[in-house]
C-alpha cells in the first residue's frame, strides 16, 4: 500500500484547473463543485466569443498548460509555448465545441502539438534526419503520455470531495469497495457509483484530448 496521493485526503480543496480556493464541504456530496461550475461557465463563454473569457480560461488552466509544458521543456520554452497555446486558442476558439469535450482537454491538445514541434525543431538541430525520425516517434509517445497523465490528474482535481476520496482509497490505497464503504459509512453501492462517476470524468477528459 502506498501513501495517499497529495491533495486527495479528506477535507481537501477542489483543485479543478487552478481554482484552488474553494473548499468542498463534506456535506455537499453529489453536488457539482463550484470550481466545476466555474469551468463550465468559462467553457461556454470562451466558445461564445466572450472577450474576457481568455483571462478566465488562463486563470483556470494556465497552470495546467504550463505544468504540462514544463514536463518536457525548459522554463524559457515552456513559457513561450504556454503563451502560444492561449493565443492560438483565442484565434481558433470557433473550433472549440464544449459539447465535444472540455476546454482543458482542447488546450492540452494544442499544447501537445506545440511541445512536439518545439522538441522536433531542437532535435533537427542536433541529429541527422534518420535519427531524428526515430526520435520523433519516442518524443510524440512521451509527450502524449504526459498529456494523458495531466488529464487524469485534472479529472481528479475536478471531482467533488467524496468521489475523489473514494478513487484515492481504491486506486492509491488499494482498499476494497467494502473497506471504503466502512470507512466512509456509506452503502457499498455508493462507493461503486462514485468510482464509476470518476472513471467517466477521466474518460471525458481524455476524449477531449484525443477526439
Amino acid at each position, binding site marked *: 500500500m502506498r*501513501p*495517499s*496521493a*497529495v*491533495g*486527495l485526503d479528506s477535507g481537501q480543496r477542489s483543485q479543478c484547473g*487552478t481554482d484552488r480556493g474553494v473548499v468542498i464541504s463534506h456535506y455537499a456530496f453529489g453536488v457539482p463543485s463550484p470550481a466545476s461550475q466555474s469551468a463550465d461557465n468559462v467553457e461556454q463563454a470562451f466558445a461564445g466569443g466572450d472577450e474576457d473569457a*481568455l483571462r478566465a480560461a*488562463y486563470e483556470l488552466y*494556465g*497552470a*495546467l*498548460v*504550463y*505544468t504540462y509544458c*514544463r514536463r518536457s521543456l525548459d*522554463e524559457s520554452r515552456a*513559457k*513561450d509555448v*504556454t*503563451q*502560444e497555446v*492561449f*493565443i*492560438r*486558442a483565442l*484565434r*481558433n476558439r470557433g*473550433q472549440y465545441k464544449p459539447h465535444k469535450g472540455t476546454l482543458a482537454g*482542447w488546450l492540452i491538445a*494544442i499544447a501537445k*502539438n*506545440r511541445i512536439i*514541434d*518545439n522538441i522536433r*525543431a*531542437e532535435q*533537427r*538541430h*542536433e541529429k*541527422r*534526419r534518420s535519427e531524428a525520425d526515430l526520435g520523433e516517434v519516442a518524443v510524440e509517445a512521451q509527450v*502524449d503520455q504526459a498529456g*494523458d*497523465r*495531466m488529464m*487524469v*490528474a485534472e479529472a*481528479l*482535481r475536478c471531482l467533488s470531495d467524496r468521489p475523489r476520496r473514494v*478513487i484515492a482509497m481504491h*486506486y*492509491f490505497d488499494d482498499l476494497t469497495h467494502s473497506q471504503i464503504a466502512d470507512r466512509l459509512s456509506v452503502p457499498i453501492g455508493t462507493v461503486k457509483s462514485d468510482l464509476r462517476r470518476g*472513471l467517466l470524468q*477521466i*474518460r471525458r477528459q*481524455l*476524449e477531449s484530448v*484525443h*477526439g
Partner: protein
Amino acid sequence: MDEERAGRTDSAIEALLRDLDAAELELIDPPEDVWEGIESAVQAADDAPGAVIALEFRRRKVRRIMLSAAAALVLVAAGVAAAVTLTRDDPARVIASAELAYDPASFDELGAQARAGAELFAEDDRHSIKIVDALLPSPEDGADLEAWLIQPDEEGNVADLVSIGLVDPDDPGRLEVPAGYDPKAFFVLDISIEPRDGDTSHSGRSILRGPLREL
C-alpha cells in the same frame, strides 16, 4: 482521429490511475510574465487587424515571407471561396485540394522542376493533408523538406503559419493538421527547405505553394 486512445477501456484508465504519481497532481503556476506576453500579443493583434503577428515571430528571429502580388490576389480570392465549406465533417473525405506552384521570382531554385498537389481530408473536427502527384527534389545534406500551412492577411502576406511536418521527397504521405489550426484560416500550403539549424521559423526557402480550394 485517435480512436484507439479516445475509446480506451476502463481497465486502461484504471492502469493510468494506479500509475499516477502524487507529484503529478501538483500544478506549477506560470511566471507572471507569461500572461503579460499573452496580453501584449492579443493587444498587438487588436491594434493591427489583418496583420496578426505570431508570438514566435516576436520572440525569435523574424523571417517574414512575402507572397508575390499575383499570388496575393489569388490567395485573397481563394480565401473567399475556401471559407465556405471546409467544416463539413463527413468521415475522412476530401473536402479541398490544391495545386502547388513554383514562383521563379521568390522561391528557391531547387523547386524549379518540382511539382505536387494536395488533398485536404476532414474527419470530424480533424484534418489531414495528403501530398499527391509529387515530384519533389531532395534538399542538400543537413536540410529537410517541410510542409506548412499559412494564414495570409488581407494583402496576401503571411499573418501566421504552422509546420505540419517533414516531407519525405520519395514518400510525402499524409500529414496531420495540428489541433487548434483551422484550415479555413490557414488555407495556403507551402513546402520549404529547412536547414537543421534549430530555428523553428520558416527559412524563407519555399519551393512550392498553393491555396486549398473547396471541391
